[in-house]
């Protein structure tokens, strides 16, 4: 059997791959108009963010050679002789066929506006288009995109990537993305895009493109004019059916080659697939349905029986960093359905789900600004999974009360389609893990191809991998990076057992290669947690995260902040005066922080040692605001002044802050002590919070502020001060020893099997028999504490690192400030 394929785009290529996986008894000839073998058009824009044409290639020329495919590139087919069953190419090649597959894709639709042929007007479809845009963009300052749909917004992103900050989008319809989102969603999206610097015009119709040879501007039907140096037209697609038309195959009135369920055209020996095919009055402008069409034809030609009966057009994209998704029927509005809508105009989030009247079925929806739930919602919709009693939990998350997390991956049926680009089901993935032995994401990608298309399903594939491995009783490895084949917990134990003291020793003994920014900070942190040595000790200094390395937080512009420790928030007038004097002397911006202390911003690297020298002389210490270490223990004023106070919460907060200052941990640590249940210190939002009771202290742990706030849970009640501190010692050592890197205590507890009951058993009942050892280890760290800024200013070697230039005394001349409300701020970054 000899099959000729016209078009070497994404779908034409997929057809070759599919048919070769089903038979070896086929002769394939491919004609491609472009000069490159098929490449990934879906990720075309990544060409501007660093990917080369090679990176985008789906399979190199060698692949075609290896599979005996005759590939004619840069040679479009010009005519089809259906009687003789022969095609003729532009370069004069003729090839006969038994079956012909048209995979000619589509072209950008260019509206007939006078002047579209001027220089500086582009379309956005091929690598050549992008190369030409790149060339032109060098001299362009302003850019315009016609079309506010999926492709238009992608082109706008490309303009920004090309460095054209002044970019406008012109949409003919009254809203952006009219096919995917509704009015309310579009206005949220528009606000977000405007905030990013894009200018958006809707309901605007271009009447003329201005300029001599090169574009200089555009005129609209309302007679307004917009000046621009460059224009990209992205107003839709036009199926390439010219060849089919000439061969008198049936085509649609608005373009497209008419096909039936088997993708047969009006000639049973000719098929059409991908964006050139018109099925049931519809062009499918996405890659997944195109792949499904390719598979259908390949299956039928090799003796199978498969039908294409339409395709789900759900999509999720990241537009300029903004998630936009729509699934099922996004717009449905009838008497028998209802829609739940959540909108946060400040954060730019819009979510809508449409559910059946009986509340059982999810029919479709729209997500703008936050689409983490997309995969689960899509699966719930497609598999008609019965909705939880409060379907709003699906978009809002469960809010207190019983755990109504919604069904996780466990709840999905085996035939749930996880990767729609490559049609991989949940069962396929689970199978790859259990039978195929794939235990990494890469392994699953290789073995099932899931996640290799648009990549949208990758988070779900990961969840399935972890879930399947766990259900087999397997341990899921969570290694640091390519240099260490260990998790943080394993490394902690190994470094301790082997008594390793420097980053290089650890790497030589336990790792391979030269390390990187992923493994250096956690290893440096483990070394500090274990041995309590000065973190800038030679050898470990350059393994510290940048902020730790300079004992200060780097800020926009490259200056640093200075945060002296103010234990419990208590400070004397004299110390306040010193802070004021230092801030004045070095021209620093001062602000009270959210952690009850004072931050001095805008210090030059070279001034840090002098600033700290003065602060230390006045009795201050490092506040470790830069480290993964104890920040503050917030206090309320307590029984010394407050009429409700039960105990002296300030004294206890100071005692605790001084006990754990300098301690290095997987993430930062915060504490709080409140003098009564009114809880003015917000102790329940801290990693450890202490609240006075009539009989002593209640100890709460694993609270968190931040983006996912979580209340701390009660670990033990009515403790005396000594016991309370012992429990905190154990709790912190257990956390430091077992948490993954950059995991706060709240997340650590959420992942812990057995949860709070288990933690309480370990800390209070000493179920692991570690309590005495942990308390002793903590005491050692407490005793070895030294202020690292004090050590830094006293050590000439360390001190000389705080110069911007190694060969000149001056400060970084590129740093610039602007005045603001009697103080200064750093100039905005570009």
């Amino acid at each position, binding site marked *: 059997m000899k099959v000729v394929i016209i078009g070497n785009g994404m779908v034409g290529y997929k057809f070759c791959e599919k048919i070769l996986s089903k038979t070896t008894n086929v002769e394939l000839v491919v004609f491609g108009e472009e000069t490159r073998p098929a490449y990934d058009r879906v990720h075309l824009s*990544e060409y*501007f*963010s*660093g*990917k080369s044409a090679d990176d985008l290639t789906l399979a190199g020329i060698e692949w075609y050679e290896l599979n005996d495919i005759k590939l004619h590139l840069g040679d479009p087919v010009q005519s089809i002789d259906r009687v003789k069953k022969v095609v003729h190419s532009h370069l004069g090649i003729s090839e006969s066929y038994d079956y012909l597959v048209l995979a000619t894709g589509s072209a950008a639709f260019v509206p007939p506006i006078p002047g579209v042929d001027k220089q500086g007007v582009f379309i956005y479809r091929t690598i050549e288009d992008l190369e030409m845009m790149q060339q032109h963009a060098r001299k362009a300052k302003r850019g315009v995109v016609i079309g506010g749909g999926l492709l238009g917004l992608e082109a706008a992103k490309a303009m920004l*990537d090309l460095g054209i900050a002044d970019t406008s989008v012109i949409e003919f319809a009254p809203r952006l993305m009219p096919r995917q989102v509704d009015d309310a969603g579009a206005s949220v999206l528009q606000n977000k895009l405007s905030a990013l610097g894009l200018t958006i015009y809707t309901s605007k119709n271009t009447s003329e493109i201005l300029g001599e040879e090169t574009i200089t501007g555009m005129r609209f039907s309302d007679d307004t004019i917009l000046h621009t140096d460059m224009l990209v037209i992205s107003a839709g697609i036009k199926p390439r059916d010219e060849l089919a038309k000439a061969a008198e195959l049936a085509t649609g009135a608005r373009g497209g080659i008419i096909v039936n369920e088997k993708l047969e055209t009006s000639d049973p020996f000719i098929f059409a697939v991908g964006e050139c095919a018109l099925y049931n009055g519809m062009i499918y402008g996405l890659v997944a349905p195109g792949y499904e069409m390719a598979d259908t034809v390949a299956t039928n030609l090799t003796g199978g029986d498969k039908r294409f009966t339409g395709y789900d057009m759900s999509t999720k994209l990241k537009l300029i960093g903004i998630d936009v998704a729509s699934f099922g029927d996004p717009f449905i509005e009838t008497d028998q359905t209802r829609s739940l809508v959540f909108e946060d105009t400040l954060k730019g989030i819009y979510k809508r789900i449409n559910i059946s009247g009986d509340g059982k079925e999810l029919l479709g929806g729209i997500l703008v600004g936050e689409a983490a739930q997309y995969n689960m919602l899509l699966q719930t919709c497609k598999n008609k999974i019965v909705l939880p009693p409060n379907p709003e939990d699906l978009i809002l998350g469960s809010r207190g009360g019983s755990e109504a997390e919604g069904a996780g991956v466990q709840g999905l049926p085996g035939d749930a389609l996880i990767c729609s680009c490559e049609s991989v089901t949940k069962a396929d993935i689970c199978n790859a893990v259990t039978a195929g032995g794939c235990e990494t994401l890469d392994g699953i990608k290789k073995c099932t191809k899931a996640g290799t298309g648009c990549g949208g399903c990758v988070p779900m594939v990961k969840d399935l991998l972890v879930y399947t491995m766990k259900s087999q009783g397997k341990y899921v490895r969570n290694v640091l990076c*390519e*240099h260490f084949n260990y998790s943080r917990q394993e490394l902690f134990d190994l470094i301790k057992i082997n008594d390793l003291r420097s980053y*290089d020793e650890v790497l030589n003994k336990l790792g391979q*290669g*030269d*390390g*990187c*920014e992923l*493994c*250096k*900070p956690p290893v440096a942190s483990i070394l500090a947690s274990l041995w309590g040595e000065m973190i800038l000790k*030679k*050898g470990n*200094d*350059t*393994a510290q*995260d*940048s*902020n730790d*390395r*300079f004992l200060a937080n*780097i800020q*926009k*512009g*490259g200056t640093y902040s200075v945060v002296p420790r103010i234990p419990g928030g208590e400070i004397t007038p004299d110390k306040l005066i010193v802070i004021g004097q230092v801030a004045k002397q070095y021209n620093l911006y001062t602000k009270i922080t959210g952690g009850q202390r004072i931050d001095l911003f805008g210090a030059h690297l070279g001034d840090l040692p002098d600033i700290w020298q003065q602060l230390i002389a006045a009795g201050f210490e490092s506040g470790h605001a830069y480290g993964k270490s104890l920040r503050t223990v917030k206090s309320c004023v307590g029984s010394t002044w407050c009429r409700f106070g039960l105990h002296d919460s300030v004294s206890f907060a100071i005692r605790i802050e001084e006990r754990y200052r300098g301690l290095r941990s997987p993430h930062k640590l915060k504490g709080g002590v409140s003098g009564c249940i009114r809880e003015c210190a917000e102790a329940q939002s801290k990693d450890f919070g202490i609240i006075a009771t009539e009989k002593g202290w209640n100890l709460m742990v694993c609270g968190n502020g931040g983006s996912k706030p979580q209340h701390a849970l009660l670990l033990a009640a009515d403790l005396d001060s000594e016991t309370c501190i012992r429990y905190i010692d154990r709790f912190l050592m257990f956390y430091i020893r077992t948490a993954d890197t950059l995991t706060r205590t709240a997340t650590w507890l959420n992942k812990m099997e057995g949860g709070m009951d288990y933690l309480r058993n370990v800390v209070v009942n000493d179920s692991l028999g570690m309590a005495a050892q942990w308390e002793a280890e903590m005491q050692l760290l407490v005793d070895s504490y030294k202020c690292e800024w004090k050590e830094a200013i006293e050590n000439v070697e360390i001190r000389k*690192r705080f110069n*911007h*230039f*190694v*060969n*000149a005394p*001056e400060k*970084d001349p*590129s*740093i610039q400030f602007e005045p603001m409300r009697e103080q200064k701020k750093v100039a905005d*970054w*570009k």
Partner: protein
Amino acid sequence: MLTDQTTLNWFAACNVADVPANGGVCVKYQETQIALFHFARRDEWYATQNECPHRKQMALSRGMIGTQNDEPKVACPFHKKTFSLTTGECLTGDECSIKTYPVKVDNGQVWIGVED
């Protein structure tokens, strides 16, 4: 990459001992800021522009160095974008890249080659 045709002007940047092992320093050359790295583990020296092209911050000399598949790289302290120290290419998928300079070490003195 520099070719033989271009004339290089070598200037003395600093002493070997001025640069921390496996770390970087910033060198001033006329009005240009150059990040100089001593990759002691591999006994290699690299120099690049000091400005991170992502947000135009003068910060790469304070970045952490390491490797990715054996390719030496530096991570910017601001948003951890990483750049190859040999080609200057951005390894975290951005279009931006950085300029690199040749380095030689002679008798405890570090020299950087610039095109004038």
